């Protein structure tokens, strides 16, 4: 954070470009998440589930006869949820009931601060690093923020003064606690292989296609994606909001915009999880077999600066394309698998994933010793 808050001497040399860069990056990530992904994913979820089930999905909302593949249904949902009655049940803890949806949404956005969406580029003599906060503890920060996001659900469950909500909140707490441990241990292998926790360094190390995380840590990848699904609270692991058992779990008593915020939090978490997956296991912004230098040579006719801009744009596009691919796969899993039972989730977390991740660490260490 020393880069962000550069000490008492206000406006040292070169601060203005960094400030502009910082603002640009924050605005970019914010628009991508809130402006593009949050509304788009509602549409993607509806349409993808429909096509997977041989249906056509929402397609009838129109403006002057233009339906745009049903994209406008997202808009209608937004309008409706905005104008719906904002309900607070009797006996609820009102301030906490208001606060909970915000606590759920904000961490999902904050976690994106450490995920690099591009490499380092030299633009007109100004070093640009396409990550909002290049922290040394990168992945741990993501975990920390994810653990904070638990509180949104837990508080929502408690503040609603509803037994189902409370049970949902308790389930969230138990599930998050169990899977965070396993998730952290599943990633230790990756840290050992790359020798760093800094996500930008991990991205740079994956320039070689065969050094992508998924090839170096296949077991770690499977364990991580399982834990990530559990952290996201979506269907195979949606015991906190299990409709058949808990009505709607921790957000049973939420209506209108606050319910929409929980919904949005779920989608944003999905984007964040895809971001972490891409950054750690899928080469980040790297294109297979095409290094940044080769790409820069390809765009060499534009001159050194514009070539760098072109490379940057290509890398950012590749990164978001990979995220879209992962969102597609996560959605496939969500619409394919049935829900686990509560005890099965706990058993999977503590008795299978945790020992497997420990074994993964052991094997990784042994292999690293042998290779040396």
């Amino acid at each position, binding site marked *: 954070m020393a880069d962000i808050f550069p000490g008492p001497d206000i406006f040292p040399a070169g601060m203005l470009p960094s400030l502009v860069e910082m603002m640009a990056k924050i605005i970019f990530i914010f628009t991508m998440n809130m402006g593009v992904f949050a509304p788009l994913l509602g549409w993607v979820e*509806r349409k993808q589930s429909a096509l997977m089930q041989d249906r056509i999905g929402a397609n*009838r*909302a129109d403006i002057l006869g233009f339906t745009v593949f049903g994209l406008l249904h997202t*808009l209608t949902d937004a309008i*409706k949820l905005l104008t*719906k009655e904002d309900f607070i049940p009797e006996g609820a803890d009102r301030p906490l009931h208001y606060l909970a949806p915000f606590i759920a949404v904000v961490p999902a956005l904050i976690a994106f601060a450490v995920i690099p969406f591009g490499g380092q580029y030299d633009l007109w003599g100004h070093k640009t690093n396409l990550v909002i906060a290049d922290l040394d503890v990168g992945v741990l920060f993501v975990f920390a923020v994810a653990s904070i996001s638990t509180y949104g659900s837990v508080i929502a469950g408690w503040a609603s003064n509803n037994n189902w909500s409370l049970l949902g909140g308790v389930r969230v707490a138990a599930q998050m606690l169990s899977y965070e441990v396993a998730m952290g241990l599943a990633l230790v292998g990756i840290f050992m292989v790359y020798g760093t926790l800094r996500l930008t360094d991990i991205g740079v190390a994956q320039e070689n296609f065969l050094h992508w995380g998924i090839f170096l840590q296949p077991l770690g990848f499977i364990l991580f994606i399982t834990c990530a699904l559990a952290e996201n609270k979506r269907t195979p692991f949606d015991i906190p909001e299990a409709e058949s058992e808990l009505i709607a779990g921790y957000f*049973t008593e939420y*209506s209108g915009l606050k319910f929409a915020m929980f919904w949005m939090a779920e989608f944003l978490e999905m984007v964040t999880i895809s971001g972490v997956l891409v950054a750690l296991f899928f080469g980040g912004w790297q294109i297979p077999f095409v290094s940044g230098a080769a790409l820069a040579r390809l765009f060499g006719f534009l001159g050194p600066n514009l070539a760098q801009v072109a490379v940057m744009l290509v890398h950012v596009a590749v990164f978001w394309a990979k995220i879209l691919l992962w969102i597609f796969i996560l959605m496939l899993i969500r619409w394919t698998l049935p829900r686990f039972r509560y005890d099965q989730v706990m058993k999977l977390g503590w008795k299978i994933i945790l020992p497997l991740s420990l074994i993964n660490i052991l094997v990784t260490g042994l292999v690293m010793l042998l290779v040396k």
Partner: protein
Amino acid sequence: MGVEVEDRNPEAALGDSVILSTVDAVIGWGRKYSFFLYPFITACCGMEFMSVAGPRYDLDRFGAALPRFSPRQADILFVVGTISHKQAPILVKVYNQMAEPKWVFAYGACVCSGGMYNNYSTVQGIDTILPVDIYVPGCPPRPEIVFDGLLKLQELVAKERSSKWPRGAAPYVPKAKI
């Protein structure tokens, strides 16, 4: 409130070629295509409801296919199946728990009027206990009829004025405490 001027719709006069949206029209448009439904399924009509929601007829095309099992988040109460007097207080409770704006969809003959069960145990049409917005006859109604009713309800919702809301609790107060 004066006399309500009905159907002086300039858009219709201009042949739907322009949008002169008042806020109500925009809200009506949004609500019309975004029904989150609460399926209150008690009897055999439920099977036909599954067919309506399934791939052949696909309720989702109308934007009405996100069943929310919490009444707070639902917009439209699908009353599907016979409502007995024992069940009526529960139905009223669910209706009262729903957040405004809310609509009630009477699905099938039993719900519309008691249907076959003209006897002591069955509610003779849920309009005796709730305000109903659309009646769909049939035992059970064919999916086409349901869609016909849904389109008709969409028309109603699109034309609604915000002065209609909130509608308040159901007129019927059950004696039994549940």
